[in-house]
């Protein structure tokens, strides 16, 4: 009973952070004192607990491929991307549709789990994959009808203020298998934009397309959809970041121009300066360079501060 049961010493001992002499002392305590022994077992149990989640191999490969794609487009002028790297990129890109599908599943489960009651929500299990197969926008009424299968054909009609419509549109945006459906969903969001408050999960899905969509035309429409959704409110941080990353790493001129225009229309601020400077000094397109320079002027970062 002449031992102090010092928790901190036991923690450091278990973590292998004690000097030899101290470690010997604690080891002796653990061997001879029941209380110390139990406390040590408890600490070891915590250290052995499953601290890291199981991750999805496909999503990892897709993230790696996206990183290489971004590296490829923003650093081509500085680094020679060898054929070797390109072929690994091509291999890595294939899992992307699966990733998008997985994201649809997760996000949709989240939406449904949290929406209090709409008829779609109560009908679908939380992890449903919704197969959207038709979207129509009616100009006369300003409402959209979205048709989907689950388990049999159904449709919801309304605008962005209706949770069911927003949820199904979001699922359509994340349908990695069908470019046509993603395109229709983006057009519909844009058409409905003035009709209801932007739904934040819907907005996240669009930001996801801005960041990871493979089709240039769809990336462009995703930016237009964001522009329309936030015409009279503040652009969310994630959307702003996705536009900045388009500005510095997108290969398509049209998409960069759309990103720049959207950014200029939504209160650019000094925190955008780093990306804008990069554009002024490095973008291949003169329109984009001069637009970025004008924006920098507007936010009060003088051009002579640029190197």
């Amino acid at each position, binding site marked *: 009973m002449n031992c102090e049961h010092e928790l901190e010493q036991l923690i450091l001992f278990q973590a292998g952070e004690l000097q030899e002499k101290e470690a010997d002392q604690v080891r002796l305590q653990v061997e001879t004192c029941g209380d110390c022994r139990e406390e040590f077992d408890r600490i070891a149990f*915590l250290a052995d607990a499953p601290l890291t*989640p199981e*991750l999805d191999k496909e999503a990892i490969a897709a993230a790696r491929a996206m990183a290489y794609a971004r590296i490829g487009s923003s650093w081509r002028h500085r680094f020679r991307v060898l054929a070797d790297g390109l072929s690994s990129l091509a291999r890595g890109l294939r899992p992307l549709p699966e990733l998008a599908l997985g994201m649809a*599943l997760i996000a949709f*489960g989240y939406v449904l*789990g949290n929406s209090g009651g709409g008829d779609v929500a109560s009908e679908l299990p939380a992890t449903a994959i919704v197969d959207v197969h038709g979207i129509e926008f009616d100009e006369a009424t300003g409402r959209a009808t979205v048709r989907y299968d689950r388990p049999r054909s159904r449709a919801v009609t309304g605008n962005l203020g209706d949770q069911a419509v927003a949820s199904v549109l979001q699922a359509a945006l994340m349908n990695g298998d069908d470019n046509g459906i993603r395109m229709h969903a983006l057009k519909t969001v844009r058409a409905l934009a003035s009709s209801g408050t932007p739904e934040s999960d819907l907005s996240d899905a669009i930001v996801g397309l801005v960041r990871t969509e493979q089709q240039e035309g769809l990336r462009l429409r995703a930016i237009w959809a964001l522009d329309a959704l936030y015409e009279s409110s503040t652009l969310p941080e994630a959307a702003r970041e996705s536009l900045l990353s388009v500005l510095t790493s997108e290969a398509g001129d049209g998409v960069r121009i759309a990103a720049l225009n959207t950014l200029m229309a939504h209160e650019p601020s000094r925190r955008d300066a780093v990306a804008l400077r990069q554009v002024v000094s490095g973008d291949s397109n003169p329109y984009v360079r001069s637009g970025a320079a004008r924006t920098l002027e507007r936010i009060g970062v003088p051009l002579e501060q640029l190197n």
Partner: protein
Amino acid sequence: MESRESSWIEQAQRGDAGAFDRLVQANEGQVLRAIGGILGRCPEVYDVYQDSLVSAFTKLPSFRQESTFSTWLTRIAVNRALNQRRKTRNARQDPLEYADHIPGSEQDASGAMEQSELRRSTERALESLSERERAVFVLKHTHGYKLREIGSMLGCAEGTVKNYLFRATRKLRVVLEPAYREL
């Protein structure tokens, strides 16, 4: 091993994307354990991994091999994961609710039930830690880094890291006590 890594680093620094890819894939598991340990199970893990790789490639020319590539890459990923965690904390009020809706978390085979139960309580318990406490605990116990190394990764003194480890262990000790008792 050491010299093969060195030559990959030099090739990658000259712009050889294939060499960069080999370096990345050789260290992928370790980097993702760090990101996953800090963020838990969520889609942002993959975004942070993606951003970390882009950032690493950008910084590669200035990497002087004062540490191993894996420690260097893990440091970049850890700092990005911590930033992400701050953002997510502000945006999402209850990350646990989100974790519960991730498909797969409820459909493990009955044999793996106990393990998945422990995994879930651990995930919950980790949510009770501050982001730095969590990072220190994970880097210590899943990577086996020395507290001194963790300090240099997080930009704080060894004594501070020690305190994070104490605090994290004390908190987890309380929250995971029922799980320990069941053992």
